[in-house]
């Protein structure tokens, strides 16, 4: 009986050992699963970097998506929010509802590729040019967030890039700053009123996503954040959208709700820059440009009503469109210098920049 007992006990222990080896073989720790250790130098505080859950490329970036004429596309409603840019003279429109599920679009011709990114949690849309010095200039979704905002990674070196800082914050390309592309964020009805010949990214992405469904519950209407951020400021409602300009630790924001029903231009000074902010609350667009031209001239602008896409004129008689291009006048063809600006939710501006000023109209 005792021998039988010992045999059973040995059998039991042997089996347990086998189970342990099966389950935990090669295990231990976290840290990238047996690959060589990756450098952990970040320009940003790791305290506010989080793994969002889906993992690297768990949210699939799109590559050269399909487009359809704005006049024929049926999946975009007039009030839907979109992001637009001009590439080789063609205005391309990217609906928010598709961007929600992909966050990054690698697009553009081979000789001028660009990466459009949209973070659903901070409401920020940014685009920058691909660096042709790199064989693969495309980006993917890292699965990490910093201050609740998208961290991209570049597919050639694996470096991480902060969307709202527009800078590489980890990896071989650390501290690199990409060349940004001017975007206009507005409604589909406004962009098609401005550019009826625009083309619109379709839902034929090859990915079976329910683009009609907003994937983050009541996030847009709630004041709650899903992830901790480094600092908070309750001067505005957290999710209120504002266009802003930044430089280093400083930022200045202009509430999209503050422009009124008529197009308005605001001459302002930010750091050492003379800027013009042009916007229209009813039409739901805003943009910030440098008023100083390359020859040192500082222009003064007045808004134009009812002549979209032209939104302002200047004292020299030039007419400027929403992308900051002079479409007529002595400087026709001139492009106003872009600024480090984009639209994002207020909490994100406050979290990213230590000194964030809010513009309030003197009137």
């Amino acid at each position, binding site marked *: 009986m005792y021998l039988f007992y010992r045999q059973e006990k040995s059998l039991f222990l042997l089996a347990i050992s086998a189970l342990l080896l099966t389950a935990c073989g090669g295990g231990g720790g976290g840290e990238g699963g047996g690959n060589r250790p990756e450098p952990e130098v970040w320009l940003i505080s790791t305290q506010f970097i989080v793994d969002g859950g889906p993992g690297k490329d768990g949210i699939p970036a799109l590559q050269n998506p399909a487009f359809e004429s704005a006049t024929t596309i049926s999946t975009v409603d007039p009030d839907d929010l979109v992001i637009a840019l001009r590439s080789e003279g063609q205005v391309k429109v990217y609906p928010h509802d598709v961007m929600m599920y992909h966050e990054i679009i690698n697009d553009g011709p081979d000789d001028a590729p660009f990466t459009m990114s949209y973070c659903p949690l901070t409401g920020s849309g940014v685009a920058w040019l691909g660096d042709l010095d790199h064989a693969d200039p495309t980006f993917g979704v890292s699965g990490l967030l910093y201050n609740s905002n998208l961290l991209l990674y570049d597919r050639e070196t694996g470096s991480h890039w902060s969307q709202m800082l527009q800078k590489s914050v980890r990896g071989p390309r650390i501290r690199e700053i990409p060349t940004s592309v001017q975007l206009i964020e507005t409604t589909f009805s406004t962009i098609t009123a401005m550019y009826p010949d625009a083309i619109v990214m379709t839902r034929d992405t090859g990915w079976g996503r329910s683009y009609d469904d907003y994937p983050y519950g009541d996030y847009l209407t709630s004041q709650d*954040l899903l992830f901790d951020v480094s600092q908070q400021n309750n001067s505005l409602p957290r999710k209120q959208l504002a266009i802003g300009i930044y430089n280093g630790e400083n930022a200045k924001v202009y509430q999209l709700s503050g422009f009124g029903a008529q197009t308005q231009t605001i001459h302002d000074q930010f750091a050492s820059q003379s800027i013009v902010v042009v916007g229209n609350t009813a039409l739901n667009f805003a943009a910030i440009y440098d008023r100083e031209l390359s020859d040192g001239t500082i222009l003064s602008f007045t808004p134009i009503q009812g002549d979209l896409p032209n939104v302002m004129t200047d004292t020299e008689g030039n007419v400027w469109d929403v992308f900051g291009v002079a479409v007529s006048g002595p400087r026709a063809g001139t492009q106003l210098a872009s600024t480090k600006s984009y639209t994002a939710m207020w909490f994100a501006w406050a979290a990213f920049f230590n000194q964030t000023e809010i513009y309030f109209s003197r009137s």
Partner: protein
Amino acid sequence: MKKLLITLSLAGALTLSTSPSIAQTCSCASVPILGSMQLAAPNDGQWFLGSTYEFHDISELVAGSSTIPDQTGRDRTSQAVIFEASRGINEKWSVSALLSAVDHERQIDDDRAQASGLGDAVIMVKYSPKSISLYSKTALSFGLGGRVPVGEDDARRLGVPLAEDMQPSTGAYGGTVWAYWAQALNDSKGARIYASASHTQNGENDRNYQFGDETTLVFGGAYQTQTPWGFNLELLYRNTDRDRRSSVEIPNTGGTWLDIAPAVQYHVTESVALKLAAKIPVSRNLNDELQFTTKYAFRLSLSYVFGGNSPEG
């Protein structure tokens, strides 16, 4: 007669695999890696030792209740080894202790994240006013348990903590109440039906993350043949609340699952038994949101009963 008693004891113990689930849900899915423990209720003076290996494939992308193609090349698995020791204090009271070792892996194309280590520990006290015996065809048990986060909950990659569903331990205390009922269907007690219900409340961990509270219901049937082979079939219902971070509900978590779990067991000796069980989804409703969830799971259990009324003692 002695053999019949042993058989009854083992069958009772192994049938109790339908015991409380201590959920470790996923921020993007909702996966109970410790969802099926063998918290048996041993007889007076009897010991139950168990070891279970669990494997979960969590690669299925579900929008609400519809499976949709993921196409990201994702391979997300969780494995766990669960050790359990239970001891019958007297005819009605018993205590169980459990320790888990967990391995999570997430591979998307050639990018692999992995974390392994000790998971959570569970201690449960059970009261069994009725047990199936020569004189009774009904079993009834109630349990009260607590989860202790003894394991690794700060696995990192690139210096950044992995998502909560990738941590071996929940990092939080929790409590479970559990009830179990079984009814033998024949005089030999070889056939029985059973049901169990449990509710688990989860606390908040150091990162202010709280896995959703969970309720489970199980209905099953077991049949022990006159040979060493026995069979189980269970229907498992599970509902979890959304996870919370800093008290804020997280979208894409929580939901309701209905699974079917067939199992087969084999008595290697009179005291040692092996059990193989699978879990196959029947339906789920993941709060009408997009979540990765379990495609299938299986577990292999080894149990050893001695002491008390068993002859080996």
